[in-house]
């Protein structure tokens, strides 16, 4: 039997559309968005999830479903969908009259072509699969022009949310057919989004202009017609201070990734700042339980208690950042509040360490059997503030008796040397988004190609049990209590040491620009935005 899940039309939200407020002229205007980089390649599969190119893809392409900042899934190109009870078959019903900018209709066969390339890529050409696309994918068929049937080899509950994930962008089949070298030329790729690429230059800028006939925006943002702004120019300015200064001096409208320290004064000066949180893990450390002394639960618990998370936010960040309440962000459906487990308690930490046999020695550093209590932190190269936080944590832990070393590598070396459970990596710094909390549990152990974050393998019975029970849950009502249990357990055990809720994408924006929306992966969309004179 097939259970039918029809999406609720979110017409109620239309009233919230910010575009309609303030007497500003709704149409016209050009904005400049300053960004640190525009990444490497423009091959859609290889670049869609990039923190940088993702901004452009978000305007140039549409997705099958829309996931908002609270993780709520709503229809977009897929007007409705059904799911088999064992979650191995899905049927998508597409909106009619949608076309790519090269004129090709966005129909069932186009969707099939996209699903196929997301899953498989064309590896020999250098077109990668989309990493987080379910590996259980079997095939997709065009039932008719607007109906697609997708078949999985195993139950795949997360499929529908994944379609709203930034990797799942719909590209014209003609573009998909192009060889990789041509796909790498952004201007050769067509999507169905509200903007099209007018011009671009590698390492310099991308200019988007609006598509006048666009008429299939996600209802959830309260606007479905053509975009208001005439053009958006993404311009690379690699120095953060210059990006901000350019917006301050009116030379640009949005600065991406400013230094958090500057936000307060910017806000005071009347600039809009946005610190949307994506759906995913908080920023924190996955502890390697194989390594001495972190195989000792007391040491891990001491670590959990010895970090003053409030000080991190006060020093490195601003009040826009939220204290971590769990190891997943608080806006993820199913996240529960565990602040009590994350309270700063140096006394408790010292006591735990004393109990574990780590006594204070010369210079205030704790030692046991002649070995010092050390921790090496590898600063995450993807997060600008990672080094500052690591420095601060080093100070905090230093007071308790830890000897903390910080290493920072570039992206390449980091990828090479730093892994979960690596022999010299006692703690791996996590910054990671996901769309559906259901996938969380399976990552933590090594079952089913899991990433085995805590190097536990299959050794922790309780964790294994929770993992299986979450994967087997057939509804959110059943899943949520189990998720809560998982969060408690992981934090109590000191497997994961949260630092702060993560804001990976920070925006500073001219007060004249209004009405942008942020989706579940915290990208700003200017589809609904307007600018006043």
């Amino acid at each position, binding site marked *: 039997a097939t259970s039918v899940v029809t999406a609720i039309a979110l017409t109620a939200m239309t009233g919230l559309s910010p575009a309609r407020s303030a007497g500003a002229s709704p149409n016209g205007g050009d904005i400049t968005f*300053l960004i640190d980089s525009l990444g490497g390649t423009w091959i859609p599969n290889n670049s869609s*999830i990039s923190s940088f190119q993702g901004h452009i893809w978000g305007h140039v392409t549409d997705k099958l479903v829309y996931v908002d900042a609270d993780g709520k899934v709503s229809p977009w190109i897929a007007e409705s969908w059904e799911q088999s009870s064992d979650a191995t078959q899905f049927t998508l019903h597409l909106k009619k009259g949608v076309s790519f900018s090269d004129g090709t209709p966005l129909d069932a066969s186009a969707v099939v072509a996209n699903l196929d390339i997301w899953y498989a890529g064309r590896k*020999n*050409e250098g077109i990668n699969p989309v990493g987080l696309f379910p590996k259980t994918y079997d095939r997709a068929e065009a039932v008719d022009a607007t109906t697609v049937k997708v078949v999985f080899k195993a139950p795949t509950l997360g499929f529908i949310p994944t379609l709203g994930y930034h990797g799942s962008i719909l590209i014209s089949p003609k573009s998909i057919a192009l060889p990789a070298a041509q796909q790498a030329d952004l201007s050769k790729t067509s999507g169905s989004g509200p903007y099209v690429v007018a011009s671009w230059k590698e390492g310099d800028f991308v200019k988007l202009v609006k598509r006048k006939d666009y008429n299939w925006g996600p209802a959830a943002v309260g606007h479905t017609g053509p975009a208001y702004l005439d053009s958006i120019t993404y311009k690379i*300015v690699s120095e953060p201070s210059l990006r901000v200064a*350019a917006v301050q001096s009116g030379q640009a409208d949005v600065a991406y990734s400013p230094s958090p320290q500057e936000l307060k004064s910017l806000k005071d000066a009347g600039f809009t700042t946005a610190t949307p949180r994506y759906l995913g893990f908080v920023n924190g450390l996955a502890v390697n339980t194989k390594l001495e002394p972190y195989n000792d639960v007391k040491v891990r618990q001491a670590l959990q208690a010895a970090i003053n998370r409030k000080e991190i936010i006060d020093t490195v960040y601003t009040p826009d950042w939220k204290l971590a309440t769990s190891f997943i962000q608080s806006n993820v459906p199913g996240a529960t509040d565990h602040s009590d487990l994350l309270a700063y308690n140096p006394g408790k930490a010292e006591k735990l360490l004393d109990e574990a046999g780590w006594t204070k020695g010369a210079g205030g550093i704790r030692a046991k059997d002649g070995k010092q209590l050390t921790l090496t932190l590898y600063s995450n190269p*993807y997060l600008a503030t990672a080094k500052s936080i690591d420095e601060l944590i080093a100070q905090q832990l230093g007071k308790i008796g830890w000897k903390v070393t910080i290493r920072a590598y570039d*992206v390449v070396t980091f990828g090479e040397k730093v892994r979960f459970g690596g022999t010299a990596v006692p703690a791996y710094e996590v910054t990671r988004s996901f769309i559906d909390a259901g996938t969380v549990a399976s990552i933590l152990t090594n079952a089913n190609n899991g990433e085995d974050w805590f190097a536990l393998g299959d050794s922790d019975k309780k964790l294994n049990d929770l993992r299986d029970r979450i994967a087997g849950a057939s509804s959110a009502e059943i899943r949520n209590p189990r998720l809560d249990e998982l969060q408690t357990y992981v934090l109590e055990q000191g497997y994961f040491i949260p630092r702060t809720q993560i804001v990976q994408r920070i925006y500073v924006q001219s007060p004249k620009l209004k009405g942008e929306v942020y989706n579940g992966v915290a990208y700003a969309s200017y589809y609904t935005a307007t600018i006043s004179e």
Partner: protein
Amino acid sequence: MTNAYLSYAAKRLAQAFVVVLLAYVFTFMVVSILPGDPITNVLRDPQNGFTEDEIRQIIAAQGLDQPIPVQLWTSLSHFVAGDFGRSMRSNRPVATLIAEVLPSTLILASAAFAIALLLAVTIGYGTQFLPKRFGQGLLRGFPSLFLSVPNFVIGLVLIHLFGFQLGLFRVIAPDSFWATFFAAVALGVPVSARIAEVLIANLDKESEQEYASVARGRGLTRMRLFARHLLKPSSLPVITVTALAIGELLGGSLITETVFGRTGIGSLVQRSVSTQDLPVLQAVVSLAAVVFVLVNLIADLVYPLLDPRVKLIGGPRARPTTADDGAVATSVAATS
């Protein structure tokens, strides 16, 4: 004479070609020292969520698991045939990438060079006209000062002063006239210091020469002495420094383009380095070597035409240089 000249030129050209090839191989070797490769590392970005198995498949599909010498041979034979390959990072042809950014760097570098020369000449010749004690000492201090300031600091200060405080240019439009001008200033200042140093040293040396005294004894004014006697011999070695400064302009563009947000060879390198984009790096290094070698070749070939003392038979060794700049003095002597 012309025969000797031509065969000398031919010999130097052949040498230049060898140097460029070796530069290509050198880059390959250096970048290949590192275990692993950029593609794997990009794939390992946790956001991608690839498994190690998948990564291995992708790598094998692109022939990146072959032994280093095989890879070197393949790329070298393509290079000699004029094919620079495809960027690992962006997948676009390297030739296109370079063609896209080259004009911008050329404009910047030429502007910087013009500014450097102007500054150097102003400082260098200025020392001849200012009173010994006062202004001259000040002028003479400039080259040292210019050489002591990290050039990104110069860039940042210029941007803040002229870009934001005075609003003379828009930071987001780095190709505009004023933005280019100030970027060129930032890039040109250290280069001007090198040229000015040589110029001053030579002017000092030449004006100490006996012929300068003798000419003064003939009743020449300071101005005429400078214009007729000192100018040419003290400016000739500048050709040598200039040729060497080309390298500095290219190297410096790395920083300047980053600071000013320009796209160019420098920022291309900067982007390629962080992802170890070998084909791009090799092409840029070879290009830089070509430019450097050619410019120096031209300098060597032009010099004997300008300086009657230099005989070509002895090769460029005969080219007189300044004693003050060790690097310059000897860089000339070494090619044999």
